[in-house]
């Protein structure tokens, strides 16, 4: 199994880094946060068509580039660093992986290429975002494929063109496709703490979905692992950026005749933050390598999600605290990451749920290494 990024992957990271550094400045992020759809179509077409990022992790036979969770993690990390605003996670990651893992062959062949090249923006409608075992409690499909129920949190629900919906069936769960504007589907924007990622409630009343696949517990768990690790990378990116900028701030800010970064309390806090970050980053990278290497279930994806979330949240808290009052203002950028941290923390399950999940897997497999 891989231990560190290959030279090619490092190269790729530089390319992606430059792109988001240029196109996802905090000025752009602040502007997009104020819009309804929350993304810039031009940047979207550049990253999907020109750079092909949306297809990175999807199989070549369905229009993707055939790379895996590691390369996707690189993209997510850079997006988290710059708080990229756009439907990448909802469409390419959530909907893309759902199709790849749950859809039948025909649906994949028809629909994955559109996700992979970004020409269609889809999103996944999951009625629970806390734990895979709770999915399907709120949305049900009848035998004709009519979907009824509601999902309170759907990423980019207002701007997506297509919904893929996981719904409870007589036995088990099925995957359904539905045009966003289809009769019986009602979409209402929800206010989120994190203005840089839009969410909506999707309510379905006998909406005529097309059944395109089955969701098994195994495939749902695998999906959960893949998306959790992608999200963990986003959090690591955000946390790294915050640490860099916070340390810089303490070097330049003077109080009591000295830079505040020379006060031992701040130095030690930053040292602890770096240790947490290094550990969470190692865990997250390793989870990506594991997913890339094998389909076997391990503790690492949940471990990565739990550690990255705790790390990002702790980092965001510290980033505000170490700035003092200015860190609590709207004008200062720190809160943008703080709010992303808070939402990422609970999206796909809060840390304590992932720790519980780790222990379940650990007991099943009894094999940590």
């Amino acid at each position: 199994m891989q231990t560190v990024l290959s030279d090619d992957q490092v190269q790729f990271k530089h390319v992606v880094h430059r792109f988001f550094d240029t196109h996802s400045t905090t000025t752009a992020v602040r502007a997009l946060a104020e819009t309804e759809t929350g993304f810039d179509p031009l940047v979207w077409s550049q990253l999907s068509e020109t750079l092909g990022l949306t297809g990175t992790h999807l199989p070549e036979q369905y229009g993707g580039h055939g790379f895996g969770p590691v390369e996707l993690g690189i993209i997510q990390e850079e997006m988290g660093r710059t708080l990229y605003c756009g439907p990448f996670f909802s469409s390419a990651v959530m909907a893309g992986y759902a199709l790849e893992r749950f859809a039948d062959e025909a649906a994949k062949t028809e629909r994955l290429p559109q996700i992979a090249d970004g020409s269609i923006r889809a999103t996944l409608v999951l009625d629970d975002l806390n734990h895979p075992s709770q999915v399907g409690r709120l949305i049900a499909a009848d035998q004709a494929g009519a979907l009824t129920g509601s999902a309170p949190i759907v990423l980019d629900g207002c701007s997506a063109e297509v919904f893929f919906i996981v719904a409870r069936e007589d036995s088990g769960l099925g995957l359904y496709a539905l045009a966003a504007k289809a009769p019986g589907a009602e979409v209402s924007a929800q206010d989120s703490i994190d203005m840089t990622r839009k969410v909506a409630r999707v309510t379905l009343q006998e909406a005529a979905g097309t059944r395109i696949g089955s969701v098994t517990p195994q495939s749902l768990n695998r999906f959960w692992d893949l998306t959790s690790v992608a999200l963990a990378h986003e959090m690591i990116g955000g946390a790294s950026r915050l640490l860099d900028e916070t340390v810089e701030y303490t070097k330049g800010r003077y109080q009591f005749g000295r830079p505040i970064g020379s006060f031992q309390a701040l130095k030690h806090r930053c040292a602890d933050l770096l240790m947490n970050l290094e550990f969470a980053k190692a865990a997250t990278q390793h989870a990506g390598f594991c997913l890339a290497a094998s389909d076997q279930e391990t503790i690492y994806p949940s471990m990565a999600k739990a550690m990255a979330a705790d790390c990002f949240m702790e980092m965001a808290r510290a980033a505000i605290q170490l700035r003092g009052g200015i860190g609590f203002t709207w004008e200062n950028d720190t809160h943008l990451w703080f709010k992303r941290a808070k939402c990422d923390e609970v999206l796909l399950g809060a840390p304590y749920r992932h720790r519980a999940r780790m222990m379940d897997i650990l007991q099943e497999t009894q094999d940590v290494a």
Partner: protein
Amino acid sequence: MSHDGIKAALEAFLDAEFSPDLSLVEWRKRLVSAGWAAPSWPDAYFGRDFSQAEALVVSQVFAERRVVGAAQVGPRRLAAETILAHGTHEQKQRYLPKILTGEHAWCQLFSEPGSGSDLAGASTRADRKADHWLINGQKVWNTSAHHADFGILVARSNWDLPKHQGLSYFLIDMRQPGVEVRPLKQMNGHASFNEVFLTDARVALDDLVGGEGQGWAVATATLSIERQGFARGRSQGAPAPASAGRVYEELARELEIDNEPYTWYPQREGRPDLILQRAQETGAIEDDAVRQEMAKLVCLTEAARISADQVSAHQKSGGQGMLPAGSIGKLGASVIARQAAHVHTMISGASAMLSGPESAFEGVIAETLISVPAISIAGGTDEIQRNIIAERVLGMPKEQRMDTGPFRDIPRNGQ
């Protein structure tokens, strides 16, 4: 004066003078003239030289009879107490009555962008001209400055002395061209504070408090009043006017303006009071991992409450040696808020993301999650509190200071 005597005199006064149909200002003018507005103040300055116990009798009568008292809330109280203690006879005569009547609102102009924790590092300039002081600089975190008529201001009048010695304390008219007030929006969307830009603003020579170079001593007195108010404010709260009549309506409007900056303050404390109900509603209370964290929170909130009760019982019985209580309580409030936010997050799960009308308690929990960072900063950061506890309570040695020379030679921001 006997307590019964006080009560009788006050009730006679109220029977004769109070009417709910008076304007708020007119009523308070009567209170001020009679010495009932601030009875613990000196006879010579609108008071009656009452002891604290005697003043308490007065408060009780006001409360029982639901009579409106003097304007007390907000920074105006800091200004009043400071002027009373350190002001000249003329300053007292000029400013105190209109503070009590509520005709003049005040704000506090101490913090600066470049000196937050290091208040004595203020670098707003006060240059002495022939017949006035010329003020230039920027202040920040000025609650209610946009409503204020006057401000209490700390500025540097001498740059060659060590930092604490070069400050002076002024009373500044906020309604002049050289003073610009801009609201400062916080990360939780509220704008409880302002930035104040001072550009060739003027202060009359008479409006210096405590003498040139005495600014730090006077400011310290103001801060000490503020801290006492913080402790008191948490247990009392403002009395809610409940009756009909012009005086009550005008009071309600005054309080609305005074309290507006503080509407989110309960949220910055983490709202531990909502935890149990939320956990029961969501069913999270059945989860043993959540229960552990809830229990830790209950331990903290209960211990903080008990500890505060013990401190005030000690103080009532004239006990001492509990001075650190303020800093320990403040540090505790930070820990509580953090743990409460953590537990709220666990309880809400993915829906902790939501902040709109559909969210828990109509957005109160969401506002809590993005307000708690304030508690460990405002009024002295956790780091400052820990310094205070270590040095003043535990007697641990201070660090060598790097800022003892002439102020102009001290490395600082914006240089």
